[in-house]
C-alpha cells in the first residue's frame, strides 16, 4: 500500500467515524447499550488508525523532502513514539545509535518519478558521518528493488562514488545512464520511486541533529 493510498484510507475512516459520532449525537434517544459498545469499539478502532497517522506526522522530522523519526526502538520510548515509528518504519528498526534511516515520500516533498532526472548533491566533506557504513537505496513505489541494466540497487561508501574536483559528491538519480557519470548513477525506474538513506553506527553529528540530508533536486528537464 502506497503512502498516498494510506492517507486516503485514513481520511475515509476519519469521515466515517465523524459521521457515526454526529449521527449518535443527533439521534441519541434511539441508542441501546449494545449499540453504544459495538459502535464505540468500531469507531474507536477507526480513530486509532487516524491517530497513528496523525502521530506519525507529528513525531516525524521532515527536512529537505526526507522524513525520519528520532528515538525509534529505544526501550524507554513512549507509546506515541512507538506508534509513529511502527507507522513510518514498519518493522523491527534499530535504535538510533545503531542505525538512522531517512526516506522520501510519506507526504513530504514532491513525488519522485523516473520521468525526470534528479541529482543528490553532498557538499565537500558532507557525506553521512558513520563508524560502519551508509547506503542510498532506490525502490519502486511498492518498496521493491528496481531492475536495471547494471544490477545496481544502491550506492554508498563501498560503491566507488567519484568526487567532483571540489570534493563534493553528486549522485545521479535517473532512468537512463548519465553520460560520463556512470559510477555515480543510481538507476531509477520509469515511474514513481522512493529513496532510502541508511547510516549504520551514525556519527555524533547525525545523532544530535546537526547533519541534514541534502534535498533531491531535479536536474535540467529532459527533452
Amino acid at each position: 500500500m502506497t503512502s498516498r493510498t494510506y492517507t486516503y484510507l485514513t481520511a475515509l475512516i476519519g469521515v466515517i467515524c465523524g459521521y457515526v459520532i454526529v449521527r449518535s449525537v443527533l439521534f441519541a434517544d434511539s441508542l441501546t447499550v449494545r449499540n453504544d459498545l459495538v459502535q464505540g469499539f468500531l469507531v474507536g478502532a477507526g480513530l486509532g488508525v487516524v491517530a497513528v497517522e496523525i502521530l506519525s506526522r507529528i513525531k516525524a522530522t521532515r527536512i529537505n523532502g526526507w522524513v525520519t523519526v528520532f528515538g525509534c526502538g529505544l526501550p524507554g520510548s513512549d507509546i506515541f513514539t512507538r506508534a509513529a515509528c511502527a507507522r513510518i518504519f514498519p518493522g523491527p528498526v534499530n535504535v538510533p545509535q545503531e542505525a538512522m534511516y531517512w526516506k522520501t515520500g510519506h507526504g513530504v516533498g514532491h513525488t519522485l518519478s523516473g520521468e525526470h532526472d534528479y541529482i543528490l548533491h553532498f557538499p565537500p566533506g558532507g557525506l553521512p558521518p558513520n563508524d560502519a557504513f551508509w547506503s542510498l537505496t532506490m525502490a519502486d513505489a511498492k518498496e521493491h528493488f528496481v531492475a536495471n541494466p547494471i544490477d545496481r540497487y544502491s550506492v554508498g561508501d563501498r560503491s566507488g562514488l567519484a568526487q567532483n574536483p571540489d570534493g563534493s559528491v553528486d549522485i545521479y538519480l535517473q532512468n537512463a545512464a548519465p553520460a560520463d557519470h556512470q559510477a555515480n548513477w543510481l538507476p531509477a525506474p520509469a515511474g514513481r520511486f522512493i529513496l532510502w538513506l541508511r547510516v549504520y553506527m551514525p556519527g555524533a553529528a547525525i545523532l544530535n541533529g546537526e547533519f541534514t540530508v541534502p534535498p533531491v533536486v531535479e536536474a535540467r528537464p529532459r527533452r
Partner: protein
Amino acid sequence: MTGYQHLLLFGSVTVAACSLFVYFWPRILLVVYKRAILVKGFGEGPIPVNTLYTEPQAVFADPLRAAPASGSSLITTGVNRDTLLMVGWLDLSKGPQVLHVPDMGGRYYSVQLTDPSNNTNFAYVGKRVTGTEAGDYLISGPDWTGSAPQGMTRISSPNNSVLVVGRTLVESDADISVAYALSKQILLAPLGG
C-alpha cells in the same frame, strides 16, 4: 438510560478502543514477522523456534531474479543491499538460549534483540556494543533464576518471546561468500544442549 448517558458510554468505549489500538499497533505489526518466521518461512520452509536463519547468498547476490517463489517476502522486500540478514524467533519459557558469535575480524555486524510486545530493542550483540571478538551470550527470559556459566555474558530479556534480527556487512560482490560463512557461524543453542 438518558441520551446523555448513552453518549458518555459510546464516547468512553471509543476513547478506550482508540487508545488500545495506538498502544498495540507496534505489537500487531510484529505478529506479521512472527508468522513470516515460524509459519511461512523464506522459501525453504518454516524457521523452527530458537533458530537463526540466514538469507541465502544467491538471494543477496541477485535479489530480483533469485528471490524465492514461496514463503514470505519480508526479508527480500525492501531496501537492504548492504548486509546479509538473519532472523529468528526465540521462546525462552523452557530455558535460556546461548548466542554464539565467531570472531568477525572487525567487520560490522549486529544481532538485535527485540521485545515483540512493543517493538523496542532491549539489547544488542555486535560491533557497536560488544565488539567483533568471538563470544557467547546467554539470553534468559524474565522467569529464569539461574546464573550464567563462566565466560558467558548474560542478557536478560523482559519477555519470553524475542524477535532476533541479525545483520552482517557485505563489503563487495566478491565478499558475499566470506560474509555468508561468518553469518552462518552465528548460532543459537539451548543452555547445556
